[in-house]
């Protein structure tokens, strides 16, 4: 860092550094060139490390996915081209995992958006004396280990070690004899509850940042005009933080699509709760079918890329603007 401190910084852009405006300037000067060299030098280590730990393995996974490889039958390896993909894509197990994953993604993100908004509003508006305690409480699920959250929810609902059944036996459908982890709907309910509980704080913090961007005058003006709180929320707050909402939704959606820990701990995929990550894990690590497993992994990766692409192109989520500056 000491090096960089001596680096000259044009006074014009100290407050609004970087971004597009700059590239318009003439870049042939020596100073610009040495600045570029320094920039590349400084950014390179992080860049290389990021690529090394992801790009290389995913390429390897792709190569593996073209062969039939079973670890415990080392002599039987053979090249099958896209055969593994044909098997995976024509298998109902894969598609059921895909739908379950998408279902979890849609439901958790939708619920988290609602609860997250509520929590963000609470944090935003809270009176000073309560702000600290509220933020602390909301950060607890954020910091907790997902596996721990999974066990906490599992033990609470489990028919042999839980208490939820005896607490909620007045709810229709719930009784002492309800085995939450015996059918798809109820298993997914608990899995999603744990997922939502653990990750809502993250979404609510992203929304809190968005709330801070809503100009207070507008709200006041709307209130003066006699708008109800709901109208203010709908007409003023939401439109003004669309970018923040979109980014929050996209990030959480991609995260939810990769759900693994909660399912692994609670059901390990029983009762139609197998998600894509778990299928990839079970195939390549559980069954040691490296070829098939790698095919599932690559498809999972492509799905994530596709979701990201659709979000950016179709819903015009502008990550760089939302992330980069005001």
């Amino acid at each position, binding site marked *: 860092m000491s090096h960089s401190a001596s680096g000259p910084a044009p006074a014009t852009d100290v407050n609004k550094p970087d971004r597009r405006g700059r590239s318009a300037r003439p870049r042939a000067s020596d100073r610009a060139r040495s600045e570029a060299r320094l920039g590349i030098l400084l950014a390179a280590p992080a860049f290389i490390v990021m690529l090394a730990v992801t790009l290389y393995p995913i390429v390897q996974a792709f190569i593996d996915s073209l062969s*039939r490889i079973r670890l*415990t*039958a080392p002599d039987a390896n053979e090249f099958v081209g896209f055969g593994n993909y044909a098997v995976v894509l024509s298998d109902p197990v894969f598609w059921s995992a895909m739908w379950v994953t998408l279902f979890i993604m849609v439901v958790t993100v939708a619920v988290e958006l609602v609860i997250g908004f509520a929590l963000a509003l609470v944090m935003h508006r809270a009176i000073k004396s309560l702000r600290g305690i509220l933020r602390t409480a909301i950060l607890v699920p954020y910091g907790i280990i997902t596996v721990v959250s999974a066990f906490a929810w599992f033990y609470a609902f489990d028919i042999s070690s839980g208490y939820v059944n005896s607490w909620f036996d007045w709810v229709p459908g719930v009784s002492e004899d*309800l085995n939450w982890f015996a059918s798809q709907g109820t298993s997914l309910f608990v899995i999603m509850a744990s997922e939502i509980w653990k990750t809502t704080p993250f979404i609510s913090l992203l929304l809190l940042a968005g709330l801070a961007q809503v100009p207070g005058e507008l709200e006041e003006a709307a209130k003066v005009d006699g708008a109800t709180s709901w109208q203010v929320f709908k007409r003023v707050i939401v439109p003004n933080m669309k970018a923040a909402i979109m980014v929050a939704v996209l990030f959480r959606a991609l995260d939810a699509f990769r759900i693994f820990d909660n399912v692994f701990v609670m059901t390990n995929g*029983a009762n139609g709760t197998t998600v894509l990550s778990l299928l990839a894990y079970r195939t390549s690590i559980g069954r040691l079918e490296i070829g098939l497993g790698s095919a599932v992994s690559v498809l999972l990766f492509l799905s994530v890329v596709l979701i990201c692409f659709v979000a950016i192109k179709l819903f015009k989520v502008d990550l760089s603007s939302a992330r980069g500056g005001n």
Partner: protein
Amino acid sequence: MRRNRMVAATLGAALAVTVAGCAPDEGPPTLNWYINSDNGGQAQIAAECTEAADGAYTIETVLLPRDAAAQREQLARRLAAEDRSIDLMSLDPPFIPELSEPGFLAPVPEDVAEDVSQNVVQGSLDSATWNDELVAIPFWANTQLLWYRESVVEEAGLDMSQPVTWDQLIEVATDQDRYLAVQGIKGESLTVWINALITSAGGQIIENPGASAEDTELGLETDAGREAARIMGQIGREGLGGPGLPTADESASLQLFQGDDASFMVNWPFVWTSTQQAVEDGLIDQSVLDDFGWALYPAVTEGTDSAPPVGGINLGIGAFSDHTDLAFEAAQCIVTPEHQAFYMVNDGNPASNTEAYEDPEVQATFPMYELIRDSLEQAVPRPQTPLYNEISTGLQETWHPVSSVDPDTTPEAATELITAVLRGERLL
């Protein structure tokens, strides 16, 4: 850990055992023994064998995951990478052929094989054998018994000195509106149950165990397979297994059996020591324990012997180990009847060597020791095949939940799925 301290004393005598061997000059080599989790017994035995080796080697234990399938994952992945640091392994029997077939297990020398087969129960020997050769060293051998509540049996007038059938159990449980505790969780325990039912009915899951993946023929669509499906489906559909059945493992079954509405249970002998402990802790009334009775695993057909499940652990020696000879010596030390007796008392895991059952401590801890031994002699292992994982997972996929099992469709669906999986045409 509180339960079984007493035994430590017995061990002093047990130490003077076999292993000799000359110590190499550069200090004793360390043998890594990959163990499944237990109550500390294996670590204790490792320490004793290290001492008995007198400098020839040092055994260090390394813990494997709790789940049998996860243990296999760890070992198979590392053996496939020709890991030299794996010397000894505590192996769950069904996975032995898979590791033996590609040559991951060092061949057992003939003299060792002869030595460690002495007085070993048949079920355990079978489970350590692949292609007619002993490929692992029998250590301890588990078997399921039929546990019953004396009060229930009395009321029903059932004569437990004679073999009983599943249908009789179902009838009594239905009449008295009580639970019949079995393991219905989607896991290895379910395969154990399926296999026990099919083999008790005189069938077998794989008709030609040595065949390649493509040519494997399953014995599910047979009278035995359908009979097994009928019994399971009935227990599931009529709610006899309790509401927890779809997630019931051995522990949950025991909990159900300890409750007020229990009639019968099939489970491993750990239930005895575990319940004793709960009584000591004041969580269960002594009268519950007094009500426990035990018998041989239930039969499917009257007049035909049942085929009780066999489990346990056999010791495999890593083929890539630098010290296979020492590892075999160590294995011989580990499985002495004295150590097996200690292990049975300390960890509640039954011995595979019949001599261990002569130990007074064993007899005091497990009043049903004779029954355990007999059950082990009669036991039939799960299918011996390098494809075990696919078969077992495929069965769990189609026979779970138990309430959905139907003799007309389930065996067929399972056969279809497993066959396709073995051909590499389906995922699991």
